[in-house]
C-alpha cells in the first residue's frame, strides 16, 4: 500500500509537468497496485487543498452518485457521447469542448471538434494528450470499464445517465453549474419546459371518438405505437428504453413496453400479433419502411407510419423536445391545427 501512495505522489507531480507518456507508463504500475478508485479521488482533493498555487478544485456528484473532483473553472472538456455534446452546446459551452466522438454531428460546430474515436472505442492516448479538465460520459452508451480506465489515469470523469425528459433537463442545469453558464442553461431549460408544457396542455385528456383507435385506446386515450429501430432483423424498443416516457408524454404507448431489454430483437410472430395503430420508424438506412409482418396492421392500412430522425430519438439530449413535438403532432394531428 505504501508503494502505491509513493507512486501516486510521483505520478501527480509528473502529471503537472504534462509528461504524458510517463504518466501512462506509471499509471500502468499504479493500476497494478489495485488502488480503489474512490480513494484516488479523495487523495486528489486533499492534495489540491493543502498545496498553494494549484488550480482551485471543487467536488460535484454525477448521475451515478460518484463524487468527482474538477477544477472550479472548466476550460477544456471532452464529450464521449453525441447526446452530451448536444447538451453542452445547448448550455452555451460548446467552445470549451476540445474533443468529441465521430458520432457527434449536431450542432454543425460539433463536427469540427477533434475526434477522440467513437462512443464504444475512444482513443485513450488522444484523450490524455488533450489535457481535459473533465471527460463527460453517457451511462446510456458508455462502457463502464472505460470510465474506470480514465479514473485510473487521473482524469475526472462525469457520468450523465438521463432517461426521462426531466432528467435531461436536470443534466442541462448541472452542465450550467459545471461550466459556470447558469444564465444560458436556465434560459434554455425554461424554453424546453415551456414547450413540454404546451404539448401536455394541447393534448390534455385525449377525446374518445376516433375510428382509428382500438377499444383499448378509446378507454385510455392513447395511441398504440410500434417503434421500429430496424426492419431486418426486426429491432424495437423494450422496457428499458427512454422513449417509453416520451411516448407517454406524446399521448401514446409503446406496444412493446413490456419486452425485456432496451432494444430487443423481436419475434416476427409477436410483431404480427401486436397490430399497432401507428408505427414510428427511426429513419436510418435500414429502417425506411415497416417490416412485412405489419402489412395487415391498422397502422399500415390507415397510413399511420411516421419517420423520426434516428439521431433525435436515440439521444437523450435537448432535442428530445423536438421529437416529443413531432410525435405528438404526428399521432394527434387534429389537436395541432
Amino acid at each position, binding site marked *: 500500500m505504501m508503494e502505491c501512495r509513493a507512486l501516486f505522489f510521483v505520478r501527480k507531480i509528473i502529471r503537472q509537468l504534462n509528461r504524458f507518456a510517463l504518466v501512462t507508463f506509471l499509471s500502468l504500475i499504479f493500476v497494478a497496485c489495485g488502488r480503489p478508485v474512490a480513494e484516488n479521488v479523495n487523495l486528489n482533493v486533499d492534495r489540491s487543498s493543502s498545496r498553494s498555487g494549484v488550480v482551485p478544485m471543487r467536488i460535484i456528484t454525477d448521475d451515478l452518485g460518484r463524487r468527482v473532483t474538477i477544477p472550479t473553472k472548466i476550460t477544456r472538456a471532452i464529450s464521449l457521447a453525441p447526446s452530451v455534446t448536444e447538451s453542452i452546446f445547448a448550455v452555451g459551452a460548446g467552445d470549451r469542448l476540445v474533443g468529441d466522438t465521430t458520432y457527434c454531428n449536431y450542432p454543425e460546430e460539433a463536427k469540427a471538434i477533434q475526434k477522440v474515436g467513437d462512443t464504444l472505442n475512444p482513443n485513450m492516448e488522444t484523450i490524455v494528450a488533450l489535457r481535459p479538465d473533465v471527460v463527460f460520459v453517457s451511462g446510456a452508451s458508455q462502457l463502464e470499464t472505460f470510465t474506470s480506465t480514465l479514473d485510473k489515469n487521473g482524469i475526472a470523469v462525469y457520468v450523465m445517465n438521463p432517461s426521462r425528459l426531466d432528467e435531461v433537463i436536470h443534466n442541462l442545469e448541472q452542465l450550467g453549474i459545471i461550466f459556470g453558464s447558469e444564465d444560458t442553461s436556465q434560459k434554455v431549460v425554461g424554453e424546453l419546459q415551456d414547450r413540454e408544457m404546451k404539448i401536455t396542455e394541447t393534448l390534455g385528456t385525449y377525446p374518445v371518438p376516433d375510428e382509428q383507435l382500438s377499444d383499448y385506446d378509446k378507454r385510455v386515450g392513447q395511441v398504440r405505437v410500434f417503434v421500429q429501430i*430496424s426492419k*431486418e*432483423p*426486426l*429491432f424495437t424498443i*423494450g422496457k428499458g428504453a427512454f422513449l417509453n416516457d416520451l411516448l407517454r408524454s406524446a399521448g401514446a404507448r409503446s406496444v*412493446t413496453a413490456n*419486452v*425485456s*431489454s432496451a432494444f*430487443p*430483437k*423481436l*419475434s*416476427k*410472430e*409477436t410483431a*404480427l*400479433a401486436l*397490430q399497432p395503430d401507428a408505427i414510428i420508424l427511426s429513419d*436510418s*438506412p*435500414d*429502417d425506411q419502411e415497416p417490416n*412485412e*409482418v405489419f402489412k*395487415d396492421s391498422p397502422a399500415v392500412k390507415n397510413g399511420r407510419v411516421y419517420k423520426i430522425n*434516428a439521431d433525435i430519438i436515440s439521444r437523450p439530449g435537448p432535442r428530445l423536445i423536438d421529437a416529443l413535438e413531432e410525435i405528438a403532432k404526428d399521432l394527434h394531428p387534429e389537436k395541432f391545427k
Partner: protein
Amino acid sequence: MLWFGSLLALLLVVVLIIGAMFGAERISLTELSVQQQAILFDIRLPRVFLAAFVGASLAAAGAGLQALLRNPLAEPYLLGVSNGAALGMMLAFVLFENVEFLRPVMAFIGAVVATIVVYQMAKSRTGMTVERLVLSGVIVTTFLSSVIVLFTSLLDAAKLRSFTFWLLGDLSQTTRSGVYLCLVAAVVGIIVLGSQARALNLMMIGERDALDFGVEVGRVRLLVFGASALLVGASVAASGSVGYVGLVVPHIVRLASGSDNRSVIPFSALAGASFVILADLIARVAIAPRELPVGAITALIGAPVFIFLLRRN
C-alpha cells in the same frame, strides 16, 4: 441400415410438426384465426422449412468434404467455403445495397472462389496432399475472417447492423425466395454428392487404389467441391453462419451407421435438418418474444457433443 434411415426420417417428421406447433405466439392447430394463419403460414412454416434445408445442406456438405479429404475435421467452415460465402454476402451488402437477389449469388460466387483458391494453394508439383489442403483451408479461412472484421469496423454501423446479426447465424430474415433457393440448392447438391458416394468410398481407401478401380479422382473432387460450394453458399446467404452442423452431424451418423458414404450422406442430410429445426426452435422460444441467434445454439450444443465424441473414440 434401412431401420436407421427410417428412424431419421420419422424423427424429421416429428421435429417438423413440433417446429410448426411452437413459437413465440401460441397457436391452436385446430381452429386458426386469420391472424394465426398469417403467423403459421407466412412466418413460422417458411422459417421451419428453411431451417430444414440449411441443416440438410450443411450436414451433407460436411459429410462429403470429410470423405473426400479423409479428414474428420473437414468442414465447410474449416475449408474457407463459408467465409468465402460470407465475404461475398458482405460485398453485396456494401456494393449493391438494395439489390437483394444479388446476395445469394455473391455468396455462391464467394464460396466457389474460396474453394478454387484453397484448391489451387493445395496443389503442388508432387500432387495434392490432404494436409496441404486442410492447411490452405485454415489460412484462407483466417484471412477471410480478418477481411470481414476489417469491413465491419470501417463501415457505417447502421448499414451493417443487419449484416452483423446475420453473421451470427439468424433465420429470422427468412424470405420466400430464400426458402426456394435453399430447397433447389439442397436437392441438387445432395443428389450430386450422393452420386459420388461410391467413388468417395473407394477414395477413402486411398486415392491410388481408387485410380486402380477406375475412379476419376479429379472429376470426383471437382463435383464434391462444387456441390459443397453450392450447398454452403445457399445456406450462408439465407441464414449466415450456422456452425458445427457440418462437423457434428456426420460424426454422429457415422457412429450409428458406419462409414459407407452411400448412407452417411443422405442420413446426415436428414439428421442435419432435424438438428437445425430444433436449434432454431430453441432460438425462437427460449426468451420469447425476443430471439436468440440460431448459430449460438448450434455451437452451444455442437461443441460439447463434439468433445464428447472425441473423448469416446
